[in-house]
């Protein structure tokens, strides 16, 4: 147990509870997506929230706000826990307040219906300027949080010359270095291209350039989501199963490899669009395959760590040791959250290789297959590990016992089954050509419409059944989380994490210094993005005026 200053403790608690409250609404909107899309609701809006407005809220809250807040809160906790030195509380508050303010500004314009542009905010659809300002504040706030961890890290290194940096800290700094590299292009898109344009200072925007800058950010974003999960898988999961980290070197190599290859591959989101030469698309295909390597490595190391733990618990045989894992353990309940995420991630990863495979991508691009894929990653290991860790941190930071035990153990299993059902429906639908991001109840799944497509009914209904299970899991989770938060304090509050010992602690100089890896990462980005950006610049794409989502004519004055 590490005791930290009450001020820091409260801010960390705020940074995990505030996004959890928003997540309740984000998940409600997720269910509404399924219901509208299955044609159960055949209307533009439900309870005052229009379909595309709800979809914007779902994406922004769940994928951007919740994840960024958790990563920052997790870092604010890991730094004092592993480095023994707290980051500056003042700066923690500055960053936390900026992020919360940015979120509130974006939320206000989304709920007033002035920013129904989805979380990808592709121009020339235009949102209210406060939407862009809010997003920028959230991101800049997270940068400030990151740089606040550098002084404690440098001090630890001075005091511990020759010692290995704790693996969790290597993972944390990798997470935020990836975030720093990835958010620069999107900051340029938002602050230089979109914000002046939404304020009416510039009349047109280069859509091809804006989309390329967005995906320059959009794919490393998913590694920003998954990296905190890898920190938990490498440094905490082995302890939870009663084992050891199988290979410390593999963990470090996986993190640093991800630092290099997370960013130079965004064009694989733009395979089917014009304005970019197909040669650069092929280059990004190759680079995307490189980034799959550390995930495959992680799968092996995590499986080996689990096997070691299971054998320590008396597991035998080639496969029967699997039965010895603590699936429903009351003490090591975090295992269920980690394990279900891992299972989903296998399918999320394999379908991801389909998406990244150049010409195969056109079979699935922008169909329901895509949300099915990324719900097995971001709503799989990412969501489950994050909510598991939020429950754990809430309990230790408040010194309160988890309430309503042991029903929370069931949450990840119900959720996993729900995701499997809903994603299977969406995978099938995607292969049948069902589009993503579409209020299908209005037309394609409405028997009264001329555009009715009966062959899409079955898969879309299947997605609803899964969605209902997912919501049941989350209702149980939130009852436990808020039940715990509002219960009586029983112990001293502080920070406590399961910390694994290392099985193979070999030391290799190549993974002992960030600097060369950062340089290679910058070089990789320059090599991958100079040619396509030069092409876009050279082609002089005609600028687009602004459009409101509700009007097929350009906005007046643009």
């Amino acid at each position: 147990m590490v005791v930290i200053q009450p001020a820091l403790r409260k801010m960390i608690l705020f940074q995990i509870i505030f996004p959890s409250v928003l997540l309740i609404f984000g998940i409600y909107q997720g269910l509404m997506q399924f219901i509208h899309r299955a044609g159960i609701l055949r209307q533009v809006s439900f309870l005052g929230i229009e379909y595309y407005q709800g979809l914007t809220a779902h994406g922004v809250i769940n994928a951007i706000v919740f994840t960024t807040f958790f990563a920052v809160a997790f870092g604010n906790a890991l730094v004092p826990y592993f480095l023994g030195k707290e980051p500056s509380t003042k700066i923690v508050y500055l960053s936390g307040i900026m992020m919360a303010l940015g979120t509130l500004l974006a939320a206000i314009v989304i709920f007033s219906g002035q920013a129904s542009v989805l979380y990808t905010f592709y121009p020339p659809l235009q949102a209210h300027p406060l939407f862009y300002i809010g997003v920028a504040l959230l991101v800049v706030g997270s940068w400030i949080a990151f740089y606040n961890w550098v002084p404690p890290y440098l001090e630890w290194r001075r005091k511990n010359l020759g010692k290995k940096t704790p693996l969790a800290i290597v993972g944390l700094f990798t997470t935020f270095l990836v975030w720093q590299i990835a958010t620069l292009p999107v900051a340029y898109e938002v602050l230089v291209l979109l914000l002046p344009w939404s304020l009416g200072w510039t009349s047109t925007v280069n859509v091809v350039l804006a989309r390329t800058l967005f995906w320059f950010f959009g794919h490393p974003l998913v590694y920003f989501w998954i990296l905190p999960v890898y920190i938990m898988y490498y440094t905490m999961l082995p302890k939870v199963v009663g084992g050891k980290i199988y290979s410390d070197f593999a963990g470090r190599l996986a993190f640093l490899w991800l630092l290099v290859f997370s960013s130079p591959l965004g064009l694989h989101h733009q395979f089917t669009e014009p304005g970019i030469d197909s040669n650069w698309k092929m280059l990004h295909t190759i680079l995307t395959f490189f980034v799959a390597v550390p995930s495959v490595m992680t799968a092996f190391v995590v499986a080996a760590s689990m096997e070691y733990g299971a054998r320590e618990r008396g597991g035998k045989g080639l496969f029967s040791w699997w039965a010895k894992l603590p699936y429903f353990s009351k003490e090591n309940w975090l295992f269920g959250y980690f394990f279900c995420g891992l299972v989903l991630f296998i399918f999320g990863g394999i379908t991801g290789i389909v998406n990244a495979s150049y010409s195969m991508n056109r079979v699935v691009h922008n169909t329901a297959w895509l949300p099915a894929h990324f719900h097995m990653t971001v709503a799989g290991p990412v969501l489950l590990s994050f909510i598991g860790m939020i429950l754990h941190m809430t309990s230790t930071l408040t010194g309160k016992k988890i309430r309503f035990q042991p029903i929370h153990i069931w949450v990840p299993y119900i959720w996993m089954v729900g995701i499997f059902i809903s994603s299977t429906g969406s995978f099938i639908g995607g292969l049948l050509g069902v589009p993503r991001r579409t209020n299908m109840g209005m037309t394609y799944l409405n028997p009264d419409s001329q555009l009715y497509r009966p062959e899409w009914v079955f898969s879309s209904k299947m997605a609803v059944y899964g969605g209902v299970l997912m919501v049941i899991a989350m209702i149980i989770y939130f009852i436990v989380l808020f039940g715990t938060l509002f219960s009586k304090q029983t112990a001293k509050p502080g920070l406590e994490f399961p910390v694994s010992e290392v099985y193979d602690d070999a030391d290799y100089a190549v993974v002992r210094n960030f600097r060369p890896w950062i340089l290679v990462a910058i070089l990789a980005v320059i090599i991958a993005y100079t040619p396509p950006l030069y092409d876009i610049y050279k082609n002089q794409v005609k600028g687009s005026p602004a459009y409101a989502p509700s009007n097929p004519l350009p906005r007046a004055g643009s």
Partner: protein
Amino acid sequence: MSSTLKLEGKLFGGAMLFLTLCFGMTVYAVYKYGIDLPTCINNVEAFTKSEVIERAPKHYEIHYVARMWAFEPAVINVPPGSTLDIYLNSVDVTHGFQIAGTNANLMAVPGAVNYTQLTLNKVGEYKIVCHEYCGLSHHNMMATINVTENAAAANAAMESAQLAPSADEAEGAKLLESKACLSCHTINGSPLVGPTFKGVVGKEETLEDGSKVTVDDAYLAESIREPQLKLVKGFPPVMPKIPVTDEEIRKMIAYIKSLK
């Protein structure tokens, strides 16, 4: 220690081999089957109007235009075995374009032209949907490619359905298109964002406040000048005020009246 390193080496090598295999198959598909991805076409101006050009028997060049919230041409008829050179351009926001059941899957991005080639051998109705969010009525976008043995007869029937209009009506039709009215009001009888123009004249409509109105010249003219004044029940109040002269309104109404 060395034993784990050896094992790690094997697993790492295995992972690399798997990924290399996946990548090898991708490259094979590109060269063996010619399944390549869209590349760069800069000459946007040539593709801002929808067009169907028969280059040779069973070889068509189709210029699709995507706009909020329709594809043009909405329906085409081709014989089985036709090869289509599809060019796609957006005149407003970003749209998607997928011909369900085929590998034709493109993005329509304003400022650039997209291209793919497709051969349709099976007789049937191929539906095209927009799969990128493009605004409030995104879910209304759909176009059809009919692959039929009687393509020529079907095309002739489509043409004769459009009877020779008067000069006013023809100009009115052009105005409705250039002012983007047809993005929300169809001429085929199915309501979209707003009521359809087909058969609207003489119809009794219920307004938002529950009162009734018979659609005539005066109501149409008033609703074009002041769109929010007398809204038909069940439609969103999203129509903008569009600058038009009285003369233009007269021609637009002449065309709307011809849609029976």
